[in-house]
């Protein structure tokens, strides 16, 4: 009783939407207020870690080609690495600021994995279009946590990071397994456009 591909994407979109709201809130109030509650301090990295954990069954049950499998395993590992490293940073177990680079690495590699495992062009199907948008959003969006690792108080980098997750959530919610690519633009896929 595996969920269809589009439903899995929508569940992850919900997770990214919650994370985006948290990042936006943290950018608005600043670290001092955000970190007053331990639950909030651990929520963002902990939730990211759990999303990485949830990526494992997706990788196993989604099937598909070897490149699909590798891309999903890479996501799972990097999301867990970034989540775990930021949990340890929040707890104080890790001190060096270079551990913050795990987030841009996770985003950048996830973006490349999105682009790498999508073998079709942008207009092949809705799914292909969403994968291209997500891939490039993550590759470009990785620059924000990269900048934030060196300038943690910069509102530009914080808001950019939140905006990356908002775009990601919207794109993932727009994913459909079949139907037109966008509005009246038909899919270029021959026959069934299911992925």
């Amino acid at each position, binding site marked *: 009783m595996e969920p269809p591909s589009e439903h899995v994407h*929508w569940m992850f979109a*919900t997770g990214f939407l919650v994370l985006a709201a948290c990042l936006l809130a943290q950018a608005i109030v600043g670290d001092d*207020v955000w970190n007053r509650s331990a639950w909030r301090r651990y929520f963002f990295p902990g939730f990211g870690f759990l999303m990485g954990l949830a990526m494992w069954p997706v990788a196993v049950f989604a099937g598909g080609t070897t490149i699909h499998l590798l891309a999903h395993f890479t996501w799972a590992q990097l999301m867990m690495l970034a989540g775990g490293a930021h949990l340890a940073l929040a707890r104080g177990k890790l001190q060096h600021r270079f551990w913050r680079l795990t987030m841009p690495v996770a985003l950048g590699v996830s973006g490349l994995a999105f682009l790498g495992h999508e073998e079709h062009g942008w207009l092949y199907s809705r799914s292909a279009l969403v994968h291209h948008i997500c891939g490039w959003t993550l590759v470009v969006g990785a620059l924000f946590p990269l900048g934030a690792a060196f300038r943690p108080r910069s509102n530009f980098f914080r808001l950019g990071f939140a905006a990356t997750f908002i775009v990601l959530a919207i794109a993932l919610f727009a994913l459909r397994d079949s139907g037109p690519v966008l509005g009246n633009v038909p899919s270029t896929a021959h026959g069934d456009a299911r992925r």
Partner: protein
Amino acid sequence: MLRPVQGALKRDHLDAPRSWRTAALAAIGPLIVLAGAVWALAEPERLPILDPDAQGFWSLAVEPPLLVLLAGVFFHRFIASGLIRDLYQSEET
């Protein structure tokens, strides 16, 4: 009126926002809920619950506009409300 009932009816976050940060924070959750509601109205076909007999389990369990709505409620109830309280306290000190 009985004191416990008075206490239960009293809402502790009806105060007007004291700063733009409080207002922005308080607006995030409702805006997400609003987006989900507008989406549900604009694309009712994305809500399989309106025709439950024709749908499978996953279609009924994972409905995008409802997920957006729930994400907004979750954020406002469990994150924003506590954050606004802490923001009030930090602004008072």
